[in-house]
């Protein structure tokens, strides 16, 4: 049997360099997958974690909302099937079916399963929608040998951040949770949790309160984590949720990353906080925390405030 040159070429998949690791701890960014104004080459993805998945999802949705047709380049690979199993393509279909296209034959059929993915992409559109999801997650984690305490703290984090997204971000949010492998002395059984929304961003939200309207971007982002600081006026006594997330994170010596619009800020394991490139720069807030199934020390709000104050002095 003989094939023509075009026939042969059509049977050879174009070679794509698989290089981008969209992980909470890495510096790769979603824009590196953009090979044209509105074409994302997902075949380049080498590894991806919840932070990467939600950043990519928000980026693709934001691009489609610009009104241009968006194309995703996919192939029948492990990472693409994994995205499929997390509900990534389902979420795109649900949101922007007409504007986002990809070769559906590559991502249909049986979804691969990932035993470490305890919570695939969860869309929270209504206040309180996260509670049953968090409750089911805690029970699942306990069945997998995790302590009730780490599940309970994740439930707390989800509750505060989802409430924030729906109250201050004025929109829905996404949740994810994944077992995370990391080499860290005396510690194992990590869980990476991620929450993302497509609202106005933490810094912009805070500045809607006249009391904080003069803060610059970085100062506004950090200040939002101090206790009793909120986009709402003082009389409403709000502004504890982000501080609670910070105290949980500091009390567990976890890896923490927050992004607001085009700003990225992280507190690595050694607590030497740093500014860096956000994984994506679309409007909204994205949080990721890698918690260890170990002791949660009680860190007071006062301690968290002091930590944030010290960071503010470095600006």
């Amino acid at each position: 049997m003989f094939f023509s040159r075009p026939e042969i070429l059509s049977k050879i998949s174009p070679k794509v360099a698989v290089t981008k690791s969209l992980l909470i701890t890495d510096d790769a960014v979603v824009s590196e997958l953009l090979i044209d104004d509105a074409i994302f080459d997902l075949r380049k993805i080498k590894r991806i974690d919840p932070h990467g998945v939600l950043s990519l999802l928000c980026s693709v949705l934001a691009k489609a909302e610009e009104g241009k047709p968006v194309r995703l380049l996919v192939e029948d690979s492990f990472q693409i099937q994994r995205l499929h199993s997390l509900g990534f393509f389902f979420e795109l279909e649900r949101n922007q079916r007409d504007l986002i296209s990809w070769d559906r034959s590559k991502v249909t059929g049986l979804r691969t399963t990932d035993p470490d993915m305890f919570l695939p992409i969860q869309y929270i559109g209504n206040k309180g929608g996260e509670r049953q999801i968090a409750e089911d997650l805690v029970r699942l984690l306990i069945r997998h040998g995790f302590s009730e305490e780490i599940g309970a703290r994740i439930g707390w984090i989800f509750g505060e951040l989802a409430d924030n997204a729906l109250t201050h971000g004025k929109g829905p949010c996404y949740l994810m949770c994944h077992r995370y492998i990391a080499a860290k002395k005396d510690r194992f059984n990590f869980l990476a949790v991620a929450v993302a929304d497509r609202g106005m961003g933490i810094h912009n939200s805070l500045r809607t309160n006249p009391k904080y309207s003069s803060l610059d971007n970085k100062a506004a982002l950090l200040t939002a984590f101090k206790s009793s600081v909120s986009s709402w006026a003082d009389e409403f006594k709000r502004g504890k949720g982000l501080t609670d997330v910070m105290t949980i994170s500091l009390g567990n010596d976890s890896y923490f990353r927050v992004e607001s619009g085009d700003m990225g800020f992280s507190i690595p394991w050694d607590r030497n906080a740093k500014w860096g490139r956000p994984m994506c720069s679309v409007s909204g807030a994205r949080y990721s925390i890698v918690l260890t199934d170990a002791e949660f020390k009680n860190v007071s709000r006062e301690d968290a405030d002091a930590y944030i104050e010290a960071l503010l002095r470095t600006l």
Partner: protein
Amino acid sequence: MTTIKLKEYGAILTGREFGQTVLKALIGKHQPPFELDFEGVFSMGSSFGDEVLPPIAKLQGNELQVINASKTVQACIEDIRVETNIEFTFG
């Protein structure tokens, strides 16, 4: 003393509006003084706690008895105690 089993409202108690709803339901159904039973509750967020615990304590002399609170729930209650000076008793 009326013992309120909070697990009837869920194992994850978060959200300010949800706290307001729960408080209304509690006060509508029961007579103070209350004792809060957290058995079966994994965690409570401070926004929920702010809406429920201080108003109940106010009805009973700024005192509140809490039983079966997990370490995570106690951490949240401690933040409320620091802010409000409610006298909590743990059982």
